[in-house]
C-alpha cells in the first residue's frame, strides 16, 4: 500500500527550478536569539566599561600570587594545628546543628507549602517566605540574629538553620509535588486522609531525594560555617580571618589545607551516602561515557 503510493506519485511538488535542487535550505534567522546575544554582550561590555578597576594591578598579579603562595605553603606552619583542628570541628558541629534545626523546621513547612496538601492560602505565604530567606545571605541572617544570642557558635548554627529552611523548604515541596501520582491516587481511592496520603502516598517515593537534599544542604552548611567565622561566630573562619588580618601567612596556609581536606572528606562521605540513598549503590552511577570502547 505505502509502496504503491510512494511509487505512483511523481516527485512531490515539482521543483521550481533546477538550480534550487543543489541549494542548501536557507538558515533560520533566529531574530530573538540574535537580539538576546546582542543584549547580553551589551550588558557585559557595559559592566567592563563602568566598573572602577585598576586593571594594571593584574600585571603583577602573577608574581604577587607566587610570592603569597610561597609565604603560605613554603612551608605551612603546623604549630597551631591542634587549635585549627578543634576550630574546624566546631565549624562542622555548627553546620550539623544548623542542618538538623533547619530540617526540623523546614520538614513540616514543606508539606504545608506543597500544592494539594494544604490550601493555597497556606502554600503561597510559605513559598514567599522560603524565597525571601534564600535571597538573604547567611552572613546577613547571622548579623540579624546576633542581638539575640550574642557572638557564639550557636548564633552561627541558628543562622545556618534559618538559611537551610529557605532551600530545604523549596526542595522539599518541589519533590513532594513531583512524586508519581499513582500511589497518591491509590491512597485517596481507599479513603486515606491527608496524613495517610503523606505517609503512604508521598513519603516513600520522595524520601530518597529528600534525604539526599538534607545531606547536600549539610555540605553547603560546612562551607557556609567557615564564612560565618568572618563575623566572629567562631570556628575555622574566625581563626582564618584573624590570621589573614595579622598576616601570619604560614598559619593561613595550614588553615587552608585543613579546610580543604576536611571539606573534601565530608563531601566524599556525604556524596557516597547520597548515592546509596538515590541509586542504591555507594559509588556514583557509571556514566554512559565509560561504556564506550576506549581507544
Amino acid at each position, binding site marked *: 500500500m505505502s509502496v504503491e503510493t510512494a511509487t505512483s506519485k511523481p516527485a512531490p511538488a515539482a521543483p521550481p527550478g533546477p538550480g534550487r535542487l543543489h541549494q542548501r535550505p536557507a538558515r533560520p534567522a533566529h531574530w530573538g536569539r540574535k537580539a538576546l546575544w546582542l543584549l547580553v554582550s551589551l*550588558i*557585559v561590555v557595559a*559592566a*567592563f566599561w*563602568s*566598573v*572602577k*578597576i*585598576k*586593571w594594571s*594591578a593584574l600585571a603583577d*598579579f602573577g608574581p*604577587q600570587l607566587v610570592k*603569597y603562595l610561597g609565604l603560605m605553603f613554603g612551608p605551612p606552619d603546623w604549630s597551631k594545628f591542634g587549635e585549627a583542628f578543634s576550630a574546624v*570541628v*566546631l565549624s562542622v*558541629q*555548627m553546620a*550539623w*546543628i544548623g542542618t*538538623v534545626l533547619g530540617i526540623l523546621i523546614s520538614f513540616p513547612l514543606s508539606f504545608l507549602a506543597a500544592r494539594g496538601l494544604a490550601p493555597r492560602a497556606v502554600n503561597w505565604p510559605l513559598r514567599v517566605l522560603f*524565597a*525571601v530567606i*534564600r*535571597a*538573604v*545571605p547567611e*552572613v*546577613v541572617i547571622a*548579623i*540579624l540574629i546576633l*542581638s*539575640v*544570642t*550574642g557572638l*557564639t*557558635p*550557636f548564633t*552561627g548554627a541558628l543562622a545556618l538553620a534559618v538559611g537551610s529552611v529557605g532551600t530545604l523548604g523549596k526542595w522539599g515541596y518541589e519533590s513532594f509535588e513531583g512524586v508519581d501520582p499513582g500511589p497518591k491516587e491509590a491512597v485517596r481511592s481507599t479513603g486515606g486522609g491527608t496524613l495517610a496520603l503523606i505517609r503512604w502516598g508521598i513519603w516513600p517515593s520522595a524520601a530518597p531525594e529528600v534525604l539526599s537534599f538534607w545531606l547536600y544542604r549539610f555540605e553547603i552548611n560546612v*562551607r*557556609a560555617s*567557615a*564564612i560565618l567565622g*568572618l*563575623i566572629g561566630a567562631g570556628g575555622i573562619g574566625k581563626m*582564618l*580571618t584573624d590570621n*589573614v588580618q595579622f*598576616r601570619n601567612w604560614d598559619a593561613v596556609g595550614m588553615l*587552608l589545607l585543613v*579546610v580543604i581536606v576536611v*571539606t*573534601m572528606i565530608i*563531601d566524599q562521605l556525604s556524596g557516597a551516602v547520597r548515592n546509596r540513598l538515590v541509586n542504591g549503590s555507594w559509588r556514583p552511577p557509571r*556514566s*554512559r*561515557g*565509560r561504556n*564506550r570502547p576506549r*581507544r
Partner: protein
Amino acid sequence: MSQAAAPSAPYMGQRPSKPRRGRPTAAAVVVLAAITVWAGLGVGVDLAAIGRNWQNAVVNTTQLLQPDYAFFPKTIPALLETLNMAVIATFIGSLLSVPLAFLASRATNPNAPLLGAVRFGMNLIRSVPDILYAAILVAVVGVGALSGIMALVLFNVGIIVKLVSEALDAEDLGAQEAALAAGATWTGANRSAMLPQILPSLASQVLYTFEINIRASTVIGLVGAGGLGILIDNVRSFFRYHELSLIILEILVMVLVLEALSSALRKRLV
C-alpha cells in the same frame, strides 16, 4: 514449577512479608542522634538564650521593617558595583569553564591522567569557600572590586565545570562516535558533536551562576572585596539597622527579580 503452584490456597489472603530492614535504620538513627548531641554540646546550643533575649529580636525586627529610604542614593554606587562584579565574573568564569568542563568529563577527554588531574584541581577549587578566596585575594591584590571579581571567578569555575561536565557525562555519544569514526580529532568531534548538545544546559548553568554571584558578591564585600558587602559591614558596625534594612531589601529585590528572569529563561532553554 511445582513450588509456584503449591502456595496458592493458603497464601491468597495473606500479605507479602515485609522486607526486614528495621535494624540498620534504628542503628542509623542512634548514630545520627549521637552526632547531634555531640555537636550540640560543642556548639553550646542554648535555647534558653532565645527565651531571654527575644525582646532584642523584636526591637531589631521592627527597626528592620522600617527601611531608611533616604539612604538609597548612597547605596547606588555599591549596588552597581555588585552588579558589575557579578556580570564580569560570570562572563570570565564561563569563558574559562567551557574548555575545563570538556577536560573534566569522561565522555570528552580520553586522556585518563589529564582527566584525573583536572578533576582533582576542580575539587580543590570547589572546597574553598568563596569568601576565603576573597579574604586572601584582598590581601594579594588590594581592597576593591578586582579581588572580588577574581574570587567569584574561581568560585564560578568550580561550579560551572562540575555541572557542565556532569551534563557532558550524561550526553548521547552517538554523534561524537560518528565524528571520530569519520576521522575527526577529539577536539573536532567534541566541538562539533558535543558542544551543540550541551549549549542549552551550559546557558542555564551560566544563568544559575549569575544568580549565585549576585548573592555572593554582596557577601564577599564583607572582607573588603567591593560591592554592597562593604556597605553592610559599615552600617552593621554602627548598628544602623534602618540602613542595613534598606540594603537587605535591595539585595532581596535584586535577587528575586533576577531569579524570576533567569528561571523563566532557563525554562525556555531546557
